[in-house]
């Protein structure tokens, strides 16, 4: 009984940490974008204020049940993935739910949220939402291929589907996977650019042409849910990358440093690039990232 309470408290702490870190990263990204554009920029805690404001909106209408639960799908996905992924190495508070085979489960669950969101967006009847969903799913087809290839390469190389095992491999060999299987790392990082949807891959929510796409009909508390689930999900993805390729993290400070270093890649690539069109984006993902994915698999088979 005591252990159960401990687990529940650990889960709550994990989600809170993920929310705070993720939303701070988004605020920092706004600040850094502003500095790159020679502006002063909002304070780094601006996204907290935005979230608080959205949560304190007094009305939020929806067009039906699926739209009502669409943001909840996203939230469930985010929380589930952050609970599956081991946040810290060997820390009792952050063990949560991870099990053998969680890598495959992660692959599966990462698509679940966007699909629920897509169903919800379909019910709004807003054409922008429909176009955004189409673009989002097309882009997902694009970046899932190098991403899955990278993960499959890792699984084949180390004969495991557990994130904890992969972390242990890195500890035992004393070498991060980003060095011992470099092609998988390159393919995965390139796929990460699409996952984070910063420009040039922000074709889903492109505010200038699509009016923020699938969430264009979501206001107030729905948008708050989407925003917080987005930040939790960003933290979950970054943690997964750190676990897989950078040996995990022993404490929260190390984790924050490593995840932020990773987060800078899509962000800085984004502020200096204009937006792709959908077919350009897919072509990009099926070009070099997929090539590196193939290389990773060959590397895994041969060595």
């Amino acid at each position, binding site marked *: 009984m005591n252990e159960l309470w401990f687990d529940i408290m650990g889960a709550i702490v994990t989600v809170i940490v993920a929310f705070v870190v993720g939303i701070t990263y988004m605020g920092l990204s*706004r600040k850094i974008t*502003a500095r790159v*554009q*020679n*502006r*002063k*920029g*909002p*304070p780094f805690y*601006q996204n907290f*204020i*935005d979230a*608080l*404001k959205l949560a*304190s*909106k*007094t*009305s*939020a*209408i929806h067009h039906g049940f699926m739209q009502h639960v669409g943001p909840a799908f996203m939230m469930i996905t985010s929380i589930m993935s952050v609970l599956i992924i081991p946040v810290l190495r060997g820390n009792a508070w952050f063990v949560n739910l991870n099990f053998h085979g969680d890598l495959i489960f992660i692959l599966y669950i990462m698509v679940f949220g966007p699909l629920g969101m897509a169903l919800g967006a379909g019910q709004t009847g807003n054409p*922008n939402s429909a176009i955004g969903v189409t673009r989002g799913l097309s882009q997902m087809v694009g970046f899932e291929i190098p991403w899955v290839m990278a993960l499959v390469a890792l699984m084949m190389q180390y004969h495991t589907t557990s994130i904890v095992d992969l972390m242990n491999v890195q500890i035992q060999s004393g070498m991060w996977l980003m060095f011992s299987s470099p092609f998988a790392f390159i393919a995965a990082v390139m796929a990460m650019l699409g996952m984070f949807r910063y420009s040039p891959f922000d074709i889903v*929510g492109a*505010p200038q042409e*699509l*009016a*923020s796409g699938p*969430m*264009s*009909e*979501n*206001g*107030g508390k729905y*948008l708050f849910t989407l925003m917080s689930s987005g930040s939790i999900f960003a933290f979950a993805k970054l943690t997964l990358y750190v676990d897989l390729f950078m040996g995990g993290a022993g404490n929260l400070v190390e984790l924050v440093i490593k995840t932020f270093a990773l987060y800078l890649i899509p962000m800085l690539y984004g502020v200096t690039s204009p937006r792709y069109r959908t077919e350009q984006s897919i072509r990009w993902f099926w070009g070099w990232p997929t090539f590196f994915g193939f290389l990773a698999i060959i590397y895994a088979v041969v060595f």
Partner: protein
Amino acid sequence: MINDKNSQKIVDFISNWARKHSIWVLGYGTGCGAIEIPPTMTSRYDAERLGIRGAATPRQADVLLITGYLTTKTLKRVIRVYEQMQDPKYVVGFGSCTINGGMYYDSYNTINVLDKYLPVDVYINGCMPRPEAVLSGFGKLQQLIGEGKANGATKYKENLEWYRANQKKVIPNWVMPEYNW
């Protein structure tokens, strides 16, 4: 406890503080004033440092910024946009044309006094107002929100009959959906 007057005061204070420092603007820029918005938002004046940023759709927006004149045709769209926004919502009238018609005061197709049709919280005068004036207007709006006095939306709901009568006077063919807000 939660309905206690003092705790409600604290909640109001916090939410007003958040609303004041996070203003998402939906610019309705069919008039000429839209050209002043890019300099306000970009490097030179950088409204984002005050928490003011553009919103993509009415559902996400807090402020409806009406830049310049409104014709009877665009007024219809503006009313629809305004009614789709989520509470609390504010309207900022931008430029002389929204105040008294400006240089289009004798035009056969532009409305002259915006606050007869929509509840305006803050007017920014000038033709065109420079970005400094825009920022000053938003500063005034922030002050009003912080004090809890920017209650245009409540006014609109309370006096809906009067606003509807005025709107229907200039829009004879009234085919608008009913919103549940």
